């Protein structure tokens, strides 16, 4: 783990860490803690950070398990305890959404919130299993609640997986397309294709224009003007791409040099369009799960609060 060296004297730029920290002695007393925290967040390698956090979560789980066992042995309402812990976790977990919507306040970076979010989530799952008598509670409210919790947890786990696995796949595709502009790009490609083909058709000298026109009308135009199928969005694959390109290349033998060039341009457009759809599918997935996760967790919070109030009222 390398710590960033202070800047050389030659370029005496004042740096954040060189500025005098205006702080009371209380803040000075907790300085080491904040330093450790920032160290963990800024310059620890991710693998190391993962190990540390997982260890911390395990310790916390064991600790709370022990506490609950002892309390249960003393005829205490452990369900109230674990429920309280769960509720607190839930609040922390929900809070990240709040943080995301308040970018203007100095509430710490969202990435550190994300770390807290992830590991609090894991911890909450553990506590959940200590809390519930059975995985899916009986009774309408309870079963709904547990199903919600399981769904949110599950989507969260998928979220970690997705947000770590999908970006590299996005990166290898050429071009950065903004999600909201995908339709714009799609239209651009369609327009470009139309121009190309019209150029081809307008060229009387070439014999191959008929071939291209037919293929465009029958196969390419529907492809260019319409969006990707739902199936493709769910499981992006290269079948469609191969079908179109091979269709194009099969017709190459009927084309003259000029036609071949046009075909090449069309092929290029097909590839770009396919890449665009691929990006769209992956980005939709990346945004979709967040959306579901967020909404479900909001519902979860509401139901959980109801459950909590009821348990508190009826627990006698």
């Amino acid at each position, binding site marked *: 783990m390398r710590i960033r060296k202070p800047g050389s004297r*030659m*370029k005496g*730029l004042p740096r954040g860490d060189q500025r005098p920290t205006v702080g009371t002695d209380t803040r000075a007393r907790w300085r080491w803690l904040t330093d450790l925290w920032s160290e963990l967040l800024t310059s620890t*390698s*991710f693998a190391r950070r993962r190990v540390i956090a997982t260890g911390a979560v395990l310790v916390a789980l064991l600790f709370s398990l022990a506490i609950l066992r002892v309390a249960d042995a003393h005829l205490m309402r452990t369900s109230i305890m674990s429920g309280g812990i769960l509720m607190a976790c839930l609040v922390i977990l929900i809070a990240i959404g709040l943080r995301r919507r308040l*970018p203007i306040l100095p509430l710490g970076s*969202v990435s550190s919130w994300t770390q807290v979010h992830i590991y609090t989530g894991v911890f909450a799952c553990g506590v959940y299993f200590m809390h519930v008598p059975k995985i899916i509670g009986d009774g309408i409210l309870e079963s709904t609640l547990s199903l919600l919790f399981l769904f949110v947890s599950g989507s969260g786990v998928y979220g970690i997986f997705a947000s770590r696995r999908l970006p590299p796949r996005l990166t290898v595709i050429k071009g950065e397309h903004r*999600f909201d502009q995908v339709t714009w790009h799609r239209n651009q490609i369609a327009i470009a294709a139309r121009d190309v083909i019209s150029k081809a058709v307008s060229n009387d000298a070439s014999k191959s224009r008929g071939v291209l026109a037919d293929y465009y009308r029958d196969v390419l135009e529907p492809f260019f003007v319409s969006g990707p199928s739902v199936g493709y969005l769910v499981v992006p694959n290269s079948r469609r791409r191969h079908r179109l390109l091979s269709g194009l290349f099969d017709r190459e033998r009927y084309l003259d040099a000029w036609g071949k060039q046009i075909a090449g341009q069309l092929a290029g457009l097909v590839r770009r369009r396919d890449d665009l759809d691929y990006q769209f599918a992956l980005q939709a997935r990346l945004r979709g799960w967040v959306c579901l996760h967020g909404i479900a967790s909001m519902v979860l919070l509401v139901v959980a609060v109801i459950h909590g109030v009821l348990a508190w009222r009826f627990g006698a």
Partner: protein
Amino acid sequence: MKPPSLPPGPNDAPVIAVRRPERWDEPMDPTMSHSDIDWLLKQPPFSTLDPSSFPRTIPLDGILLNDCRLLRVKPCQVICRQGDYANSAFLVIDGSVRLLTEGLPEEDLGRVRERSLSWTQALRKLFFPSRVPETRRPEEITPLGNWNNDVNDFAPTDAPASNAPTSDAPVLFLQDMDGVLRRGQAVTLLAGELFGEVAAMYRSPRTATVVADELATLLEIRWQGLKILRRDRGFADRMEQHYRDTWLPLHLRELPLLRHLPESNLKRVVANTQMRSFGRMQWNADYKKNRTLTPAEQIASEPVVAPEGRPATELIVVRSGFGRVCQSYGAGMRTTAYLGKGHLFGLEDLVLSIVSPPNHPPGVLQHTLTAVGFLDTLHIPLETFATEILPHIRRSELPTRAAEALVSVPSDALPRSDHERRRNRREDSRTLVGEGNRDQETAPTGTRFESTALQEFIVQHRFNNGREAMVIDLHRCTRCDDCLNACASVHDGNARFARVGETHGRVHFVQACMHCTDPVCMIGCPTGAIHRDEASGHVRISEPICIGCAVCSNSCPYDAIHMAEIRDPQGVLYTDAKSGKPINKPTKCDMCAGLPTGPACASACPHDALVRIDLSESPPLEDWLRRRAS
């Protein structure tokens, strides 16, 4: 992005007519009076200047009136601080000031954060953004007060000085001056001497802290004015000479390599040092042209400072600007490092050629140094280096090969006698014990990246200029655009960057203001509206005095500045009363200055993917990449 050409919206839309600001709308010091000017014109150096060498639109007295201000300082008052980004130079009219090159503790220099919004203000700003892009309140687009458009009318204006970019530096007094003087070496500047011009001209941070020695009167000249003044040959020469006399020793002294040089040697070195400049200061104009070229062509187009294969005859020190160190590799050139301010070139070769036996052919340069854009260098001849400097260099400070060579040579091959060298080494060891690890660094011979490809990429796109570059790790970025949304929501709904830019592997360099080491956007700003924030070093635009000439936007090589038409909160367009043309203002990343949080983009990224990072040196980026590699 070009500002839109068509008149915005329907033609019959209501507009608010205002007057387009002009140069000198905002005099540096409105309280400057005729008597001041007359008195100044009698003082040297202005008495010696020849007014005819100035253009008619910008006469000398105009400069004095609008680009200067008189400063009366009390003893121990800090006039300028080391590390500040300057827009102005100071001329000592009367009294004397003390110039401290020894770094003072930041607290003594009273560096403070800029005043930030309260939470409530911030939240109001966040929750009630305007529904119209780029809205401004009237006081935000033109300076308050009755501005005069006539240069010859010297009626004093009562504009608040707060609008001037440089004048809101807090008046600060240095505690325990004597202690400081005892600690660091200080230079006394007397009447007629100019200081701060280097920082002003080369857009570099102040190299020294200047404190008033006694009651003194200074003339502060902002660099736009200074540029005009240099048109007078004499003035320019005097500045040149003055630089050599005053600053060169200090600059040289600041080189780690020469830290232990005795005064006498230093004097000789100063005498023999050549000052050279390569490329144009407005390098960005050329870059706009040849950025499309292939890397090879780019390198070919860069002015060569020292070609590879030529005998190493001098040590080259970069004073400002950027240099590319490259080596012929295969058919093309391979960039092995890039040089920034204070970096050295040819040290290793120089030492090798010195220690090689006399009958042996002298060592040659292994690399080529070219000027990336603009490069300002100091050249120390071989003989001077061998006699004056080399004996005082510790081996630990030399590149390894040179160090080895130095051991292997017979003692008589070296100009200095043995015992002296031994003495030096003893001193060195003492200092070693005394000063700790920082002295272990070898001489700064450039910034190197482990991956050559990344290095080539950075240099080719001039990202080495960036101090707060926005870098995204595409392998972690989920394209959620939270950074963009955060930026927009803290800027009243207007994003200050777009998530587009150059990509190299997983590293994505976003088109956002990098707050460059060499902010070319400042060149040619007629009013100094675009300036460095003295505390943070961020490049800021104070819009009220900006005339919307779009020079900065055009000269930014990274398309980070965007000219926008501005409207009032109801969405009504501001137009110039005279021409009826819309009023434009440049918008760019301001590092969320004045907000409770830091840069919102970095803190809004949920996946540690986005960072604002200093590219002028390799460690930050490499550490950042190393974290996620494992």
